[in-house]
Structures are given as C-alpha cells and as structure tokens.
C-alpha cells in the first residue's frame, strides 16, 4: 500500500494497469485524454496502447482483443460515444471474453464540449452496466471492479466519470493489485462472435435478465450507500454532487441519504428501502434527471407515497453544473456565503487562438481573399473553432466532428451562389473527414476544403494522429500524407503552403475557390506548442496608433497600453503576421 497523489484520470489509468490490461485504445477528448497518456507513460512491457483514428475504431480494436480473452480499456469523451455507438450497441449483445472497461467521460457545464449528454442514459440504453465515481479514489476502485464484473458477465462495463472527477487530484492509498498482463488467443465460435438475428433475440433476453440479477447485486454494492438517519426528508445524489453534499452535511444526520454509484442496473431494493423511510426526496444530480426517473418509476411500481423533487418538477436547474455552495445553501446546515461581490465591470476572458497560432494566419488569408464575396465558412471541432471569435469571425457553422465537409456540400446544393468552405484540422481529417470528402467527390460537390494542418491534435494537448510519424508510445510510424490521400480520392486540385506567406495564401484561396468541383488548400505550419518561439516582434515609434494590428487579427500579444500600441514580448511567438498589416511598417522583429 502506498499513498499517491493522483488525477482522477491517472487513478483510472493506474487501476487499469493494475488490472493487467493488455490493450488500451482511445481517441483524445476533454475530459478523458489524460487516461491514455497516463497509461502510455506508465505502461509495463507487453501492454499495447494506441490513439485510434476515432472512437469507433478504438472500441472495435479493444473488442477484438477482448474476444481473445485479454483485458482492455477504451477511453473517450461523451460525444465520442456517439461515434462509437454502432459497435457499442452490438457489442452489448455479442459480449466479450476478457474484461473490458469503456471509459466515457461526461462534461457537465458543458466546459469543453458540444453537448451535455449523459452517459448514464446512454449506458442504460445499451443495457450495459454503468459505474459513476464520485472521486478519483472511487474511480480507482470502480475501474478495478469494472474488469472483474466484465469478466463475470462477459460483457463490457462502462465507467462514467465527469470532468470534476477526471480533473481532480486527490491523495489516497493505492493497493498492490498488480495482475500480470494476460494476452489471449482467438477461439473460433461463430455462434458467439457472429451477430445474427436469432442469436440476438437470445442475447436480448440475457441482457434483460442481467438487469434484474445485477440490480440485486448492486443493492449490496459498497459503491451505493443508503444512510438512514430516521429523518423524513431524503437526499439522493451521485458523482461529484455527492462530494458537495458530504462537505455541506459536515457529519450532520439531518437527512436520510442515498448515493448511487451504479446507475445501471439501478439498485432497486436499496432504493425501495430508502424511499419507504422518507416522505420527501430532493435529488442532486448533473445532466439528465436519471436517478429521479428511476426513483419515480420505483415509487410508482411499488406504490410508495413519497414526493420526489429534482429537475422534472423544476426544483433544480435543468442544465449546467452543480456547485458546492448551491447544495450547501439548500441543505442549510453549515454556514454558507456568497463570498464578496465584484462591483466593477470586469472584462470577460473567453479562450482564444494563441499568439502566433497558424490558424489565425489561415483564417485571415481566407477572410482577405473572400472580402465582399458571398462565402460561407463551415468550421469543425478543435482549436480552430475559436476562429469564430471577433475579430476573425470565420466560423459560420460548427456541428460535430467532420460536419464541416458535409454541411458545406448540403448548403451549396440549395444555395448555389454561396462559395462554400470547409475548415478541417489534421486530426479531425483522419477522425471523420475522409468519408465526407469521398462523398463530395462522388456526388460532384462544389466546395473548397481548407486543411488546417498544425501537425498535432492541439485542443486536447498535442496528441499524435495518423498523419504524424510517431505514435502514442513514441514508436516511429508511417505518417499518412494528407495531400496524397486527397489526390488519391480524386480531388481536382490540392495545394500545400504556409499560411504565414500571406500574399501567396490569399492568391491561392482566390484562385482555387473560383473553380468548380472539390479542391483543397493545406495550410501547413506547426502548432505553437510544437515549435520553438522565434524572436519576438516589437512596435517602434513610427506607430500611428491606427490599431489595425489589434482590430484585424486579434493576437492576444498585442494591446493598447499607456497610450501606446505594444506587443507583450513574453507572449509573442514571433510569427510575423502582424508585421504585414501595419500601414507604416512600425512592427519589426527583435534581433536574437
């Protein structure tokens, strides 16, 4: 036993390694990314890790290994499960041999996501067990349990932490489990591994039966808690909200308490015990009213006379995160405070493209080239979504991974006069851009694809992808060339250039977007996190304070200070984009 200080995601990674996994696969996505990175950084010999091209691929790869009897972990964020839902729904029926833990990290808020979808609901829909940790420590223990359970029921188990658990660090005791890595062999058994309607009928029955048997088992699980303090009012909660409730209760027994760590199958017997002892229940949970629905069903099914308050009667807010103080105020035990107020206007600070970011130069070039034209800019998921902010204002649509390519096609089919652009990053290109591009060529679309190739998956903290010559474990890889792929699928024209050569870039955009068909410009320049900063730029006394450099590109390093326009040389990455737009040539680079 040893005391460790671990990030929730590291705790999950460590538990997976301790469980003897032979394979880990995933696709980066906040708040799940650090799990795979921690596995890769601590992996024993014989453990295979990979960033897969997308979540569907990741899940299927792990399924193959689990068919052979090996233990596997798959990681993704909640919207990644949408991509992986096709294999998930079938795999629930087919099952696995080696234990498989699918980690799907939810993001209440949302803080860094497109949706506030709830994987407890998704898990229940797939009929696979879902575990919902309330702390990094519990995430560790649940991960260990997930493999044991999965092997017992021969089906994958879903672990669903939320951002505040994934990104919380906690010091706690870690035990020595240390299972050795068990590889496997594939044993042919078509009745088991080939999904067929007849077998699916039987598997459906088995899945439904599992709901009943696991529900009974979970009623006794230590991940669920019922604390009967002989009070008439009960609190039901889960995940991080349980931590908030605990802190606010501060040891008080003013309420009966139900904590749910196994949302699916729902621990019905435990819930009956809880509901039979109270007349009123308040529920604190984020995202869907999941526990609330389950309790309402049980109260109805067993005719229990109890009032249940949560999101469905609008007692609690319908969206967004819970907070420690909101719950504390409600429970009204410890002294609570609103803190001090801010009584001056404080500027907001939304995230923005970094200083020196090549995306800024790419967007600016397209913007210049399209001035006065009816152009529509379809964006995608990644740092470059931030191109929507003023002053660039270069993202007209953003839906989900890969949709920039296909939305542009649909728009152009009915709004033919619109010049349709698709902006896609290099990682997204491989994750979900390709099928849309093939569609464009085959169905004779008129779009201009702008590949923003910064040689990394930047938003999630710089992971490699199939276009990069190395892998997650640091091995040399065969990088797949984006221009070659585009040429191979039959694009009419593919140009590669640096967005920092602004004049050339603007010309290229003008020329290529005027043509019919599917054509692409690859703006290639590395993310600022990958390249060493060049000597910074500064503004000399020739400056006429026209503010053009500030208003046109919005580089965070340039600001108006002490009645002067200045570049914060600490922040400047020396990209040189601002230099070109100064009308009096007041911006120059420092000598190194």
């Amino acid at each position, binding site marked *: 036993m040893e005391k460790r200080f671990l990030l929730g995601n590291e705790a999950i990674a460590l538990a997976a390694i301790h469980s003897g996994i032979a394979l880990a696969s995933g696709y980066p996505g906040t708040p799940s990314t650090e799990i795979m990175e921690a596995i890769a950084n601590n992996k024993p010999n014989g453990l295979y890790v990979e960033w897969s091209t997308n979540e569907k691929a990741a899940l299927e790869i792990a399924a193959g290994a689990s068919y052979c009897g090996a233990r596997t972990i798959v990681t993704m964020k909640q919207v990644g499960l949408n991509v992986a839902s096709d294999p998930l729904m079938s795999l629930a029926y087919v099952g696995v041999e080696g234990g498989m833990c699918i980690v799907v990290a939810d993001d209440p808020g949302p803080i860094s996501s497109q949706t506030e979808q709830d994987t407890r609901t998704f898990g229940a829909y797939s009929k696979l067990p879902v575990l919902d940790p309330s702390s990094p420590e519990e995430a560790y223990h649940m991960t260990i349990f997930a493999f044991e359970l999965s092997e017992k029921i021969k089906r994958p188990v879903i672990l669903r932490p939320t951002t505040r658990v994934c990104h919380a*660090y906690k010091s706690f005791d870690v035990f020595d489990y240390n299972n050795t890595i068990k590889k496997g062999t594939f044993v042919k058994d078509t009745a088991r591994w080939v999904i067929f309607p007849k077998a699916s009928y039987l598997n459906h029955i088995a899945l439904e039966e599992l709901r009943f048997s696991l529900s009974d088992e979970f009623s006794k699980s230590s991940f669920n808690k019922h604390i009967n303090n002989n009070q008439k009012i009960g609190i039901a909660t889960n995940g991080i909200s349980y931590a908030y409730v605990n802190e606010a209760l501060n040891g008080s027994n003013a309420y009966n308490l139900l904590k749910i760590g196994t949302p699916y199958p729902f621990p019905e017997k435990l819930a009956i015990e809880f509901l039979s002892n109270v007349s009123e229940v308040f529920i604190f949970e984020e995202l869907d009213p999941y526990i609330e629905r389950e309790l309402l069903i049980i109260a109805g099914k067993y005719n229990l006379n109890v009032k249940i308050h949560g999101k469905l009667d609008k007692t609690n807010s319908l969206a967004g995160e819970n907070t420690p103080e909101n719950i504390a105020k409600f429970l009204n035990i410890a002294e609570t405070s609103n803190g001090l107020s801010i009584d001056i206007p404080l500027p907001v600070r939304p995230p923005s493209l970094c200083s020196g970011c090549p995306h800024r130069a790419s967007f600016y070039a397209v913007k210049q080239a399209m001035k006065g034209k009816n152009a529509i800019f379809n964006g995608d998921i990644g740092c470059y979504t931030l191109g929507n902010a003023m002053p660039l204002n270069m993202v007209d649509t953003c839906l989900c991974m890969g949709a920039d390519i296909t939305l542009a096609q649909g728009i152009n089919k009915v709004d033919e006069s619109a010049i349709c652009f698709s902006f896609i990053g290099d990682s997204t290109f491989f994750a979900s851009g390709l099928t849309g591009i093939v569609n464009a060529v085959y169905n004779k679309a008129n779009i201009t694809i702008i590949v923003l190739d910064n040689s990394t998956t930047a938003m999630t903290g710089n992971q490699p992808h199939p276009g990069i010559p190395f892998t997650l474990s640091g091995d040399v890889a065969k990088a797949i060339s984006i221009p070659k792929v585009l040429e191979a699928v039959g694009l009419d024209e593919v140009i590669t250039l640096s967005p920092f050569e602004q004049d050339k870039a603007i010309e290229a955009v003008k020329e290529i977007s005027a043509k019919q068909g599917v054509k692409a410009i690859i703006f290639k320049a590395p993310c600022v996190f990958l390249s060493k900063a060049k000597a910074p730029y500064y503004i000399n006394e020739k400056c006429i304070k026209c503010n053009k450099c500030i208003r046109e590109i919005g580089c*965070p390093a340039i600001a108006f200070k002490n009645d002067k326009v200045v570049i914060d040389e600490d922040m400047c990455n020396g990209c040189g984009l601002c230099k070109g737009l100064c009308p009096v040539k007041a911006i120059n680079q420092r000598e190194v």
Partner: protein
Amino acid sequence: MNILCVGVGGQGTVLASKLIAQMAMLNGDDIDTAETIGMAQKGGSVVSHIRINKGVCSPLMPKGKADLVIAFEVIEAIRTLPYCNENTKFLINEKIIKPFSLDNTKDMLFKDYFNYLDNKGFKIISVNTDKIAKELNNSKIRNVALVAYAIKYKLINYSVDSLKNAVKNIVKPKFVDLNIKAIDMVINN
C-alpha cells in the same frame, strides 16, 4: 487551508498548484485539488482549487472560503472575489493581460486593478517576477518564483527545502537547476 491559484491559460498555473500539492504530500498532509484542463487553457481564465487537510471535502471549494489567492494576473485576482472573505490574503504577480476586445483603445493598467483590491483592505503582497524571468531567460520560471514568494512571506506554511524537493519530484530533470536558482533568487532577495 483553501488556496486558489489563478491566471490566464498558458501562464502555467497548473504547475504552481502541483508544486504546492507536492509540498503538502511531502509534509504528510491530505490534499485535494481541482484543475482547469481543456478549452480555457487557450488564453481563458484558469483556476486551480487547492485544499489542504480539509478532511471529507469536494475538490472545488465553496464560495467565500479561500484563505489565500495566488494570482498570476491581476484581473484574474479580482475574478476570485466570490470565493473570498475579508480575511483572504492575496499574492499577486505584477502583470495585466488585457483580454481582446474590438474597442481595444481603452487603457487597462495594472495599478488601477490592483488599487481596486487594495482599497478593499485585504492583505496583499504584490511581486514582480520580470527580473527573475529576464535573468534566467525563461518566462515559465514565474510559476516556481510565485510559490517561493508565498513561502518567503509566510503565506503558506512549508519550507524552502520542501519546495526544492517538490521541484525535484515533478519538474522535468533538465529544468530542475533553473527552478532551484529561481527559488534562491526569490529567497535571497
């Protein structure tokens, strides 16, 4: 103790929070922290909640409960007020990063924002890390320097040695010496 470590994405507040957590661990204290990881790291407001020996607690501290704010930037220091009370202490890096706005002609000065906090009667220590960053030719070194200042001015109860050990445990080997130098510069100044 509840500490908030705040700044602008890219300034590296996470490292400062990790250093404090490491010191707590080395001291045998219980520690919980919550980090901002994700989109906000690209130039947005970032906050680390650090909770030492709080027993059963949530990783996020409730409003009004911060004992100490370590701010890498002054606007972000003010943004923590809902987490503060009259007794909250502040350690502020003398730096202002102006958020982008189209009307960017209006001036925003460190001293105006600093005075706003100062007039509220808090115990505030402001430090300038420019000299150290310049001398060591590394702007990321401000992280460790700020934590060293917190020790020097007795805002946190750990020793200089424990900070040096924390550095050895979590900073990349090739940057350890540079970090130790920065600590010594802060302490001996």
